[in-house]
């Protein structure tokens, strides 16, 4: 095993060579040869690390999704190459469109609320007041808790019969809601939990972004007679744009792959009403005694592609900002 990985990695190292001369300012080839070998020797560990822990799993996942793996062909390695048949299966599956819609809703709604609440809190805490540091620290609690703990706590609170949320609703005369057990509310419930968990991250990043905005600008604006609302929309928001962009991108990638919270709270159910791509992929691959590895890998790859698309959009947007 070790031997093959080493040869594989040196192979990749050689083929990746073309990139280096381009980066160096017109190298003089012959005399530098020895120096280049040394450079490669130093690069090797990183390259090996990247290949073994990043490139290989990705390629393997791609391979899984392009072959028809059954439990038997997984063992003896005779899975036939089927091109995109697994993707077709996945697209035609009755779970596909609901899962796509759930993934989109879950991600977008999470980001919108996490970002706006995070921003509001960041601006709020930026005006120093007594106990602001303590309160800000308290807001970090959801971030510090293990996901398993937060998700279990939420699922107890939202229990139809004995949950504290329904108890509080009953005090104000509202009928009990089947948070986790009705198809209409299950996705809303996991959204609430996920927003609660994601706010601190947005708060921290945006707060640190605020600290980089020079107070001179605010002073100048005050002298010009700008009110708080104008200061936010004309100064804070535009100057925070780079920080906002990275916060939203990270949030997006993170939210797309959220698994633990949904799995613990609803198992993607009832039915498939809170099944996202991440849950679906897990269900296919590990949910039953008979793993459906190839479609599971196909769904996983779709997730990677979606994340990649948004990554590229981010890079383009950033380039435009720089120019």
């Amino acid at each position: 095993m070790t031997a093959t990985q080493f040869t594989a990695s040196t192979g990749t190292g050689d083929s990746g060579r073309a990139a280096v001369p381009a980066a160096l300012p017109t190298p003089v080839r012959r005399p530098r040869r020895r120096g280049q070998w040394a450079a490669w020797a130093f690069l090797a560990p990183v390259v090996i690390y990247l290949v073994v822990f990043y490139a290989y799993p990705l390629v393997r996942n791609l391979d899984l999704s392009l072959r028809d793996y059954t439990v038997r062909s997984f063992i003896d390695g005779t899975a036939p190459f089927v091109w995109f048949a697994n993707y077709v299966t996945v697209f035609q599956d009755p779970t596909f469109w609901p899962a796509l819609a759930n993934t989109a809703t879950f991600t977008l709604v999470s980001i919108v609320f996490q970002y706006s609440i995070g921003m509001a809190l960041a601006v709020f805490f930026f005006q120093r007041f007594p106990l602001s540091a303590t309160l800000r620290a308290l807001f970090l609690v959801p971030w510090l808790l293990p996901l398993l703990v937060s998700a279990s706590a939420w699922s107890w609170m939202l229990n139809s019969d004995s949950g504290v949320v329904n108890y509080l609703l009953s005090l104000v005369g509202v009928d009990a809601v089947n948070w986790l057990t009705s198809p209409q509310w299950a996705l809303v419930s996991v959204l609430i939990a996920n927003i609660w968990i994601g706010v601190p991250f947005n708060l921290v990043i945006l707060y640190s972004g605020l600290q980089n905005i020079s107070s001179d600008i605010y002073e100048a604006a005050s002298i010009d007679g700008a009110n708080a609302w104008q200061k936010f929309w004309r100064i804070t928001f535009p100057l925070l744009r780079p920080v906002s962009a990275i916060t939203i991108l990270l949030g997006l990638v993170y939210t797309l792959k959220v698994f633990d919270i949904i799995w613990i709270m609803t198992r993607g159910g009832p039915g498939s009403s809170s099944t996202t791509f991440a849950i679906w992929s897990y269900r296919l691959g590990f949910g039953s005694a008979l793993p459906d590895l190839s479609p599971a890998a196909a769904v996983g790859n779709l997730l990677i592609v979606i994340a990649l698309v948004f990554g590229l959009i981010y890079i383009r947007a950033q380039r435009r900002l720089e120019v």
Partner: protein
Amino acid sequence: MSTNNTRNRALGAIAIGAVAVGVLAGCSGGSTGGSTDGGAGGTYTFWDPYPQYDASSDWAKVIDTCAADAGVTIERTGFDTSDLTSKALLAGQQGDSPDILLIDNPAVSTLVEAGILTSTDENNLQVGDVAQNILGASVVDGKTYGVPIGANTLALYYNPTVLSAAGVDPSSIKDWTSLNAAIEKVVASGKKGITFSGIGTEEGSFQFLPWFWGAGADLTKLDSSQAVSAVQLWTDWVKKGWAPNSVINNTQTTSWQEFETGDFGFAENGTWQKAGAAKAGYEVIPIPGAKGGAAPAPTGGEFLTLPVQKDAGRYAASAKIVECLTSTANVVKTDNTLNYIAATPEAQKEQLAQDPTLEPWVEAVNAAKARTGDNLGTKYPVISEQLWTAVQNSLTGAQSPQDALTAAQQAASSK
């Protein structure tokens, strides 16, 4: 300054390299398991889903004794149940399977399908006296691939205090009509009726099967009228409030916690709760069939299997160890600690002699059915997934029982 920087970076690179090499070495070192030693003597590997038992436990000791009798030593590893199937598949892929694998019974047919288990034809394991209904989980196309270490199943627990307050005589519960009447009385007395686990995983199917089979339905035809009547029964309980809405999301553990509040008349749960139930004063009856008699519940529990080895000479010692572990004296002790019912009539008799309160459980286990039996094998997981989905869709009111089951049958037969 700048040379300093370069040197630091180089040192960093070397450090990372050292770590990477260390990790790789560790990886390759780990993958050479104990299965390379040949013939008698040597070390044999044993995987089980009981990580809660360490080397000093009775379970580990009985394995060591049996191994010593076979003239070998055992290296035992306990895995989490949900992990063990994929671990076994991966090990099979790498030609690195353990000598003996104790695995949850529905996974046996999956591993047989993968071709990593040996049948009794190859390993000469004796399974003659094991009860056929339990052994069924390991029978694929007429060949047997493992021996049960014991079995558990489901039954209906009841809370005598709640029942007597509601004026219900548990012995009157013989079929679904009398059960419904009993639940209605309990609910009328101000208590809650019944709790079970209808979660959207295998656990949900496991809990639903006694009602499904008790109605006379068959797993190869999910949309039969008998199947609809079973889903209707559960759906009505939830609709009328006889069962709490939380059953849709309940695991068997959370369902049991609900029952332990003392507010419930009935709870469907497994053999593994019997010790706690006895302490709390709960009693148990078999789950009734729709028209009377005990409904067949699914069997749970693990099977001892012998995965394929490169050296066929290893099977003899492994089979010896397995036969020793399943010998009446040893298996009774093991099953008592695991809260299992033994799989052979002889061992069941022995268990009953030691603890007569096991009677309803022995009865339930003897009426039980293997989920992957009837030669369903690896078709079962596919059918089961559709079944639990249909149950969920009906319990939530998203679909009528008939529509949910029709869709389930369509999906199951298209795969």
